[in-house]
């Protein structure tokens, strides 16, 4: 079980996350949903303590993995990263072939023998579905989808208990997304997979639980959590409703004109965050910066 307790993140003078409380299960897929700027990526980075290298970020609070606070001083970040793997949004190819990429961390962070390394690398590559002929190819020459899978393979080769994925379906064509979904389902059978995404289709198909975050003036918070069917079809909170409707129905689901927005003082009338410019030009839906 992962518990995020009172996780507070400040960055560049602004409050990003305020006293976040979140519990994620041992297995399965948890999706973190919400508009950009909500600290979802920062949350992932704090889990592997990447924030410590960034002077602009101040993080406080605890992240407990089975009772041990990962952010405690006496816990080495390297140990944390053996347990929790992060797959970035835009993976960078390490120099060498696909095989070199996948065995890289195994060679440098573990004391496994050559045979064991080979076994693990093979297992990882097969799990992500990369054919053997790709293994010898230079990593620079891979397509975006292939590189994504290499990034996943090099992370799971270390056999972490938790996998964090930052917007995994970003930039993938629908067929590649389907492959990704199947991979996520397979991966989540034995470990916790946490996805940060905007992709509601993906969410609906792979998530076991969805947590929706919304930016408030004093920082982001989780406003609603639950099963995907509930959150995505019949959300309870107005913020969730706005987000979900924007994805499924586009601008037509939202307010018709500025006047309505101005007159409306209820909590539903969202905030300053969304503003329709021209009813006649529904593409101009601007999030307020």
């Amino acid at each position, binding site marked *: 079980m992962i518990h995020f307790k009172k996780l507070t993140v400040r960055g560049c003078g602004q409050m990003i996350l305020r006293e976040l409380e979140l519990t994620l299960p041992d297995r399965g897929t948890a999706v973190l949903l919400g508009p950009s700027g909500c600290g979802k990526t920062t949350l992932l980075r704090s889990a*592997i303590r990447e924030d410590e290298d960034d002077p602009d970020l101040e993080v406080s609070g605890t992240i407990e993995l089975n009772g041990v606070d990962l952010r405690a001083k006496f816990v080495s970040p*390297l140990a944390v*990263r053996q347990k929790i793997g992060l797959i*970035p949004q835009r993976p960078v190819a390490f120099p060498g072939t696909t095989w070199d990429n996948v065995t*890289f*961390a195994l060679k*440098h*962070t573990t004391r496994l023998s050559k045979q064991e390394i080979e076994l693990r690398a093979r297992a990882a590559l097969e799990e992500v579905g990369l054919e053997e002929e790709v293994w010898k190819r230079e990593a620079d020459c891979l397509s975006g989808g292939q590189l994504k899978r290499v990034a996943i393979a090099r992370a799971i080769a*270390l056999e972490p208990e938790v996998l964090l994925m930052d917007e995994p379906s970003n930039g993938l064509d629908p067929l590649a997304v389907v492959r990704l979904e199947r991979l996520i389902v397979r991966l989540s059978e034995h470990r916790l997979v946490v996805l940060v995404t905007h992709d509601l289709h993906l969410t609906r198909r792979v998530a076991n639980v969805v947590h929706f975050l919304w930016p408030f003036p004093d920082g982001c918070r989780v406003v609603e959590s639950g099963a995907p069917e509930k959150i995505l079809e019949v959300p309870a909170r107005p913020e969730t409703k706005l987000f979900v409707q924007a994805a499924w129905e586009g601008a037509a689901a939202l307010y018709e004109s500025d006047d309505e927005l101005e007159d409306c003082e209820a909590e539903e009338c969202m905030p300053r965050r969304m503003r329709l410019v021209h009813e006649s030009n529904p593409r101009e839906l601007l999030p307020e910066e």
Partner: protein
Amino acid sequence: MKFAVFSSAAFVFVLFALMLLDILVRGGAELTPQYFTGAVSDGGRSGGIGPVVVSTLLVVLMATAFALPLAVAGALLCTELLVHRPASRQLVRRSFEILVSAPSVAVGLIGWSLFGQVFGFGFSLFSGAATLAFMLAPLMALAFLNGLEAVPQALRSQSLALGLTRWDTLVYLVLPAARPALVAGVMLAVGRALAETAVLVLTSGVTTRMPEDIFDPGATLAVHVYNLAHNVPGGESRAYAAAFALVVVNIGVQLLLTRWKPRLANQEATS
């Protein structure tokens, strides 16, 4: 206008062509393999430049060897250790830039004072190499810095995310990624070392005896040209021969550089 600029350009290129041709004609005839290995005789007016070649190789190799670890450390200081202190980083960079554009005679005098007199090495290949290293280290450090900064930050952070230490990330990922720039930096330094005369005249001397060890004095190729042209009466033809060799080596190094890193080579010429 067109006429004016074209004639000035023509004048410039013709001038250089004539200069180089002059060197080729007057110096080329002397160049035989024996020239490069033969001993110097008659104060350099005849015989080969064997000792000079040896001195040159020793000085250039030693200077580069002294400067390389300093330069690598200097560049790493900026990109890895001072990552979060931009003000200090800028200061260090300034220090490098200042030394790169400093007049080499002044550095030569310091070398003579420090190594030749205070430390008592006198004119020696060692003094020359050490002083030259002072000039080469910042030059290489700047080249290395540019190369290291061009490596995307994501490479580092994604390697760290996989659990590698900062050192391993540096050695096995970042440095290999910056390799072309590192090689170019070293070549830049070697080219500079070969062309540098003022510093060496003041520190390693103008003698053409074969050096027995690194604490003996010795003239490098560039210094030999200077010596023959200026100090040795009747040394004209030999000076041209040595100059020809020098120009060939120099142009060779420059061409190698432009092939590997065109932008870097251009920067050197214009900085």
